[in-house]
């Protein structure tokens, strides 16, 4: 799964910047939408952000991507942060522990692209705190004690919001809004619109009571 930005719209496909050496074409058949020739711009326009999966990499260097599949679609609302792709495993953590801690403590929803682009949505404050966690991971991800570092940052800046912190109605993966022609995919809630599953409290790395104050 990667996050891309639309850079060009053609009659039957879009070109996406996914941080690869070349722009990746997304053909209209690779979407959940039923699109007639020339209608591509009604669905995605330049600067829209999308979650896609890489299907094929050809010998010519052409990268085929698709928007058909779980967790894929157009992104609405929220913001995008870019990380080195090498840091993505640290962001996810063992069994998803790190990303779950961050989303739970900040009340945000996150989509992680393997190309280093991360979509975050939530309250302004939640987004700001999640961004700061990403910055810490970017700069200190290679060191040990990262989990404790992130935990202590989150503990020192607030507790998890009770309502999950997400504004009602946002975000959504907009597969069926607007004056669009018929939509022939299941319009049910998109996987990304769900909050992360509740996870058991992770074992704190340090002494359980007073976490060390942040170093800055």
């Amino acid at each position, binding site marked *: 799964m990667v996050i891309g930005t639309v*850079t*060009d*719209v053609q009659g039957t496909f879009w070109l996406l910047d996914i941080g690869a050496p070349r722009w990746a074409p997304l053909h209209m058949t690779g979407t959940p939408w039923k699109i007639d020739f020339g209608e591509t711009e009604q669905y995605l*326009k*330049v*600067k829209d952000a999308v979650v896609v999966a890489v299907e094929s990499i050809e010998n010519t260097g052409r990268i085929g991507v698709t928007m058909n599949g779980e967790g894929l679609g157009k992104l609405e609302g929220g913001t995008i942060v870019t990380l080195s792709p090498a840091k993505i495993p640290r962001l996810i953590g063992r069994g998803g522990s790190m990303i779950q801690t961050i989303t739970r403590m900040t009340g945000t929803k996150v989509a992680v692209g393997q190309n280093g682009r991360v979509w975050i949505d939530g309250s302004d404050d939640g987004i700001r705190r999640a961004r700061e966690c990403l910055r810490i991971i970017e700069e200190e991800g290679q060191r040990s004690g990262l989990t404790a570092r992130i935990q202590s940052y989150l503990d020192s800046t607030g507790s998890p919001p009770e309502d999950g912190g997400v504004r009602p109605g946002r975000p959504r993966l907009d597969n069926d809004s607007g004056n669009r022609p018929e939509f022939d995919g299941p319009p049910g809630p998109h996987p990304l619109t769900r909050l992360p599953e509740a996870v058991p409290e992770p074992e704190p790395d340090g002494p359980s009571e007073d976490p060390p104050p942040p170093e800055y």
Partner: protein
Amino acid sequence: MGNVGAKEIPELFGPDGLRTDGRRPDELRPLKITAGPLHQADGSAFVEWGFNKVMAAVYGPREVHPRHLQENNKAIVQCRYNMAAFSVDERKRPGLDRRSQEISKVIAEAFESVIFAEEYPRTSVDVYIEVLQANAGTRCAGVVAASVALADAGIPMVDLLPAVAVGKVGGKLVLDLNKLEDNFGEADLPMALVPQSGRLVLMQMEGHMHRDELGRALDMGVAGCRGIYEKMKAALRDRYAVAPAASSEVSA
């Protein structure tokens, strides 16, 4: 500005408080605008302003050259402000020097702020400004000429862009510097106004202007721009007026 080690500063105001060319501090030089003098261009204008003579031509919207500059969701505005070799006292080496490139950039950005660029994706609106005879204030004359040329070419815009410089000469603020004032003044503040919104889309400044003077200088420039705006509209009306003779023939 910045005439280090230059000659004596001449007297820039007469005993009557008037300037070397007889103008009041807030008075413009004579300005004449002709819309559509060129035939090949999609739009054109000729501006004679004091001793300045500036021609502008507009081509487009058309294919983008070079290709990689193309924007897929809007038109780009490219501007080339150039001074003819013979436009100044000492022959200028032909071609774009750094000053011309900077001016070209800020003028292009000023027009891109008022042109409905999203109407013409993947195209370029090319604005060419040639200074044929220079006598201070050529970038403002260029903006006025280009603006009328854009309207002549039928490019949809929020508004025309009148432009003028305010300067500080002998400690006094003056409108529309002439060459002598430009050479020996303390500050030069060229600006271009969107009359409809009252906002500036081009503004540069060089010299020494005390913080308390800035407000008055901007007000003086805005008032000057509004006067120029009327002349720009009049030039376009002249060009597109239906000739009285022709209309009477039709009605007869």
